[in-house]
């Protein structure tokens, strides 16, 4: 186990290194940060003086060496816009994004498992067909359109839900804030979470359905029927457990992807999270923040994949991550 984690850690460091080089080398193509820092009528001379002061005129390798040296001390640079260490800025926005991801994950699990299982057991029922029809539509509608549609219906026309923002937040453990603790926060969470879930939910319903149908065809299920086991036991214990294996693998990868989708959801709902922050940083050419964001998101991918591998071992004892044969 320890050896496995150490190996993962080493991989993570390589991944971070590659990400930092890539993000660092594209920054020149993003535009000129000075333009966003000064007014339009400021003279070229004045701007060049500021560039010099900020070290933006140094050669690439000098700049990268300076960045890497600081990064080893945990300093990923200072955001031009927020004037605070980029890592702090991102970590401050992390709870808001994780609120969204957590809420969307609850929705996905809560809906996809029962719906997927139902559709697998009763493939010919009218309800199953409706569910599958909706999931096709859901997959093909872009996130921002879903978001704007939901705002239009539930905020403007019906007036039930707030149209933007995160609302009041509660605090736990002294440092973590979450919108799940207040009624106002929960109200603000509903639309963005459903929007974010709208991409993954259909995918998981279809995945669970097809996996379950396959499992139901397998020999050991036939044997279970022959043995006269209760249908409930067959469906929900024997079949479901094996259905979930590939679902967990896909799920782990998709949680990472969901972090990426938060960029769109957060922008539509003006959600003060990391994704929105990233898009703004690109618009403002806030390069330290962009680099730091990419590194943090890379870390999230590595961590979630590691956790998935560990869970995989728990669910299926035949999978061995570490040690000999």
């Amino acid at each position, binding site marked *: 186990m320890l050896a496995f984690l150490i190996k993962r850690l080493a991989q993570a460091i390589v991944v971070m290194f590659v990400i930092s080089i890539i993000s660092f080398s594209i920054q020149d193509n993003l*535009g000129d940060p000075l333009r966003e820092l000064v*007014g339009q009528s400021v003279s070229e001379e004045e701007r060049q003086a500021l560039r010099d002061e900020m070290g933006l005129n140094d050669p690439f390798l000098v700049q990268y060496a300076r960045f890497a040296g600081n990064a080893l001390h945990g300093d990923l640079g200072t955001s031009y816009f927020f004037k605070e260490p980029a890592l702090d800025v991102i970590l401050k926005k992390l709870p808001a994004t994780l609120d969204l991801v957590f809420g969307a994950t609850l929705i996905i699990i809560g809906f996809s498992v029962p719906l997927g299982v139902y559709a697998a057991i009763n493939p010919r029922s009218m309800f199953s067909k409706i569910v599958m029809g909706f999931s096709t539509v859901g997959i093909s509608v872009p996130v921002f359109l879903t978001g704007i549609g939901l705002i239009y219906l539930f905020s403007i026309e019906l007036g039930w839900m707030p149209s933007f923002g995160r609302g009041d937040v509660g605090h736990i453990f002294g440092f973590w804030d979450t919108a799940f603790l207040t009624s106002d926060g929960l109200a603000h969470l509903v639309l963005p979470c459903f929007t974010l879930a709208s991409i993954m939910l259909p995918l998981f319903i279809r995945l669970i359905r097809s996996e379950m149908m396959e499992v139901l065809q397998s020999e050991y299920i036939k044997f279970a029927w022959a043995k006269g086991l209760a249908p409930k036991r067959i469906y929900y214990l024997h079949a479901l457990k094996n259905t979930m294996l590939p679902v967990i693998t896909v799920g782990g990868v998709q949680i990472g992807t969901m972090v990426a989708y938060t960029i769109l959801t957060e922008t539509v709902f003006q959600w003060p999270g990391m994704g929105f922050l990233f898009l*703004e940083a690109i618009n403002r050419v806030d390069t330290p923040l962009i680099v730091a964001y990419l590194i943090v998101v890379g870390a999230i991918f590595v961590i979630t994949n590691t956790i998935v591998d560990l869970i995989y071992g728990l669910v299926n004892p035949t999978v061995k991550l570490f040690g000999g044969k």
Partner: protein
Amino acid sequence: MMKKTATVLAGALLSLSAMTAQAETLKMAYDSDPVTLDPHEQLSGGMLQLSHMTFDPLVRWDQDMGIEARLAEKWERIDDLTMRFHLRKGVKFHSGNELTAKDVEFTFKRLQNSPDFKGIFTPFKEVRVIDDQTFDLVTNEPFPLILNNATYIFPMDSKFYSGEDENGNAKDMLVKFGNSFASRNMSGTGPYTVQYREQGVRTEFTRNADYWDSASKGNVDKIVLTPIKEAPTRVAALLSGDVDFIMPVPPADYKRIDASSEVDLVTMPGTRIITFQMNQERFEQFKDVRVRQAIVHAINQEGIVKKIMRGFATPAAQMSPEGYLGYNPALKPRYDLKKAKQLMKEAGYEKGFTVTMMAPNNRYVNDAKIAQAVASMLAKINITVDLKTMPKAQYWPTFDERAADIMMIGWHADTEDSNNFFEFLTACADKDSGLGQYNSGNYCNPEADKLMAQANTETDAAKRAQIMQQVEQMLYDDAAYIPLHWQNLAWGARAGVDIAPVVNKMNFPYLGDLVIKK
């Protein structure tokens, strides 16, 4: 239900509210929020909006582009180089310190060191303090725009900003990209103080209880500013009642907001001119005035305003908008396709040519669509346009390189004066003086430049107007650039939030004077 109860209650309280000022909260959403609390760190619309809420200028613009006294009660010209100002008595900063001429001097010196503002203050020599209430603004040469530029002097509390902060840095230090005392703390004389600020998420303002302007009818006690970047979300927030006031309103939603009885749309002709410049150095053919004339005649400004801007812009034939001294009423848009073709024929380019064009796609209202429209209009006189649009962050470096034959540039004159357009957009480019910094067309007319220089030291307004109108005429005759239109400004507010009297062409809503009707 809630709303109805509130209305009934409000009705019952109406007699009361007539006697006592009602505490009102304004929730507003802009497309961005202030980058800092230091008013001198960046010269931008957002920062000036903040300055007008938390500080007061010496003088400010009114809705008709006239000058209104604020902290300076009155002023008089002493000689060609000097203007004497008398400060209002008994004005207190948020810190409780009293405003004196020393604060003005302190602020002026700080402005002169600000990379963003020093350009506006180069014509000035110094602030000469006479006594606590009196000071002189002295210029290097006779300068006609003293009052225009005095709108940028928002006196800062010199006592509050003196000394050192906990990091051992001077409190008045001006830091462009970093943490400074002034970027986190402020003490002005303005109607509001910043009570809470989470950058990029929300800023809360509370009314300054000791505000000097007791004549102001403003009754807003608390303002909550939330930046909402996405235009549809901003509009949705207004329509659903989550916010009371939004700016800007996207043209696509004007009709919808105007039609709704619960929200009001206020629009006003703006002062930002949108133009294209034809680069004579990159593209030899543009040196021929007939070719430039042909292009200007091929562009249908009215069509662009009608179809793309949905009527919310003013077609332009010059850079100075109406109300500026240099505005020349004789100049009209000259769309005439026949003449354009004729001119191309005379110049020997009946078969046309191919040019490159670049424009930003997120800087001006509908910028990319406008560029596409212009490209297709030029196709009618056989000019093939190779158009490229890009986000502003990438556009500006490209613009600096003068990377295309035709480039888009929009301009708002910081001094609200015609000469500012000439200096930045059409003057012969000169690295040392900084003139023509945004003249990507490399247009150069020494005669126009001479007049421009003359206008810079002419203090007689009527003579100045004449000179600058003459320059506009010369640029028009020369087809120095392609004028398109002035963008309109648009604000949306919940009915009852009376924004019409407090908004202006500069887009600095004077929220201290805002009245919310019950």
